[in-house]
């Protein structure tokens, strides 16, 4: 069985500066796969490459065996990839639940005619979509915000909301970019619980995170980046004991 995500010799340069250089790895379906590394190691750039927001300078990414070189982010979403952002991307001009309902975009049949005349079929779809979105918000733990304007919500709630939106698309793989950043201890614990639940449902999770405790606790495998290059790759146990990793983290 081939890997769900396969990255080979990936390169991304911004005006001569290599943010990601010669990175290769593979993520099997069902894993929780984390990318760690010091600030500026190229983690977010890597996510932007995988999710199609940046085009690689060199190298190849395969999703389910298919090359993603020519695919736009929305086409990747159609193929089951969804993500959250380090700097949250919430539509502040909508309510919380609308943000999650947006996540179900691909699951809804939208037809201009039935939309304009607001035909019963559309209403039914909308009802069930809303219901599903409400469940998801409950699932991630921001169920009390349903019709709150997104702009009026707290940071932590928005972080969870973004995950709910990504889940609403029922992705095969979800990319979480620093979901724990800015969260306090209790919130982080809840997040860990949430990620576990997501993984238990069979969704592959890719994670960029700084919180070592969290990462080591839930990851099946880890990728360590440093200055855009792969420093190490393996199961948490191997990473923990890798001298290069220790050196990099301790400022060696």
């Amino acid at each position, binding site marked *: 069985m081939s890997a769900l995500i396969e990255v080979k010799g990936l390169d991304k340069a911004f005006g001569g500066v290599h943010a990601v250089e010669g990175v290769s790895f593979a993520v099997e379906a069902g894993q929780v796969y984390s990318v760690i590394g010091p600030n500026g190691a190229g983690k977010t750039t890597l996510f932007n490459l995988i999710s199609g927001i940046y085009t690689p300078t060199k190298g190849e990414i395969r999703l389910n065996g298919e090359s993603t070189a020519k695919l736009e982010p929305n086409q990747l979403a159609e193929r089951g990839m969804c993500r959250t952002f380090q700097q949250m991307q919430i539509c502040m001009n909508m309510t919380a639940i609308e943000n999650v309902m947006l996540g179900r975009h691909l699951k809804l049949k939208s037809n201009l005619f039935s*939309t304009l005349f607001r035909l019963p079929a559309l209403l039914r779809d909308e009802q069930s979509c809303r219901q599903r979105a409400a469940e998801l918000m409950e699932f991630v733990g921001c169920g009390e915000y349903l019709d709150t304007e997104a702009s009026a919500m707290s940071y932590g709630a928005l972080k969870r909301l973004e995950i709910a939106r990504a889940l609403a698309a029922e992705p095969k793989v979800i990319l979480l970019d620093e979901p724990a950043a800015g969260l306090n201890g209790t919130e982080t614990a809840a997040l860990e619980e949430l990620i576990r639940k997501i993984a238990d449902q069979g969704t592959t999770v890719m994670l960029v995170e700084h919180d070592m405790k969290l990462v080591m606790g839930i990851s099946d495998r880890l990728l360590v980046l440093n200055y855009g290059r792969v420093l190490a790759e393996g199961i948490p146990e191997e990473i923990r004991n890798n001298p290069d990793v220790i050196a990099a983290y301790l400022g060696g």
Partner: protein
Amino acid sequence: MVNRFMQSRLRDLVFLAIILFALPAFLSNPFHYDLATQMAIIAATVVGLNLLVGFAGQISLGHAGFFGLGAYFSGIMTGSYGWSSIPALLVGAVLVGIIAWIVGRPILRLKGHYLSMATLAVGFIIAIIINNETWLTGGPDGMPVPSLDIFGWELSPFGSYSLFGMELDGNQAWYLFAALVLLVAVWFAQNLIDSPIGRALRSVHGSEVAARVVGVNTASYKSLVFVISAIYASLMGGLYAHFQGFITPAVAAFDFSIVLITMVVLGGMGSTMGVILGAVVLKLLPQVLADFQELETVMFGLILMLTMIFMPKGLLPTIQMAVSKRMKKKAGGQA
């Protein structure tokens, strides 16, 4: 379970209908009906433009071009080629939609001021063509347009009609017609906003990248809303031409594009009721200021500037915020 939009949609639509049908009690002469009719038509145009600007967050400084195309297409087909109004309006709308789609695809990739520039250029090119092709459009001096006929039934500001036993003159009949058109335009706009398509559109404004990663093909949604708002403009342009009975290239001019976008921003971007208010205010202002003669321009500029400085969110949203703050205060005081 009733969501925010459903509530406000019903409330807004009923509220608007009450205002529209109660208004005649305050209109004392045909000139008032004349103005009110124009306001309704322009308001419907702006409701369409608001879908693009207010909800999808894409600026257009050339929308009068589409309004003008609709006006001239309808005027030319009915006037010179003997078409009936309804097919002229509809075919015009389809053509304008196609044109908008063709130009929209490439220019909607642009962002911010570059998009304003490109839409401005498109509007200018349309206006220049209308101005120059005198054989077809009558050139800068304009052309007369026959009155509206709806499947053989003629609606003219100069006619007289009876409705449920009420005697109406042409201006009153036109007003009622335009009011209905506005209601339908608002209804469509609201249905669109509160739907999967509408969410996709709004997400383009809220966070384009978020929209893309959940599978929204933002490029085609931007095109879609551009086309829809162009069709609104085209249809309303056609109606405007039939109502006025005479059009000049001013209906397609840059100045008018600016007026349209100003109505949206002044009234409140993203608020359907707000932009209608914006249209009413901007249409009324020149009439009110007419008595100030030389001071008219200065005052218009000053009012526009001050309103936008002190109410950057637009008239209606600012008023609504003030009211809800007040009510909260009251509630808080009692608690």
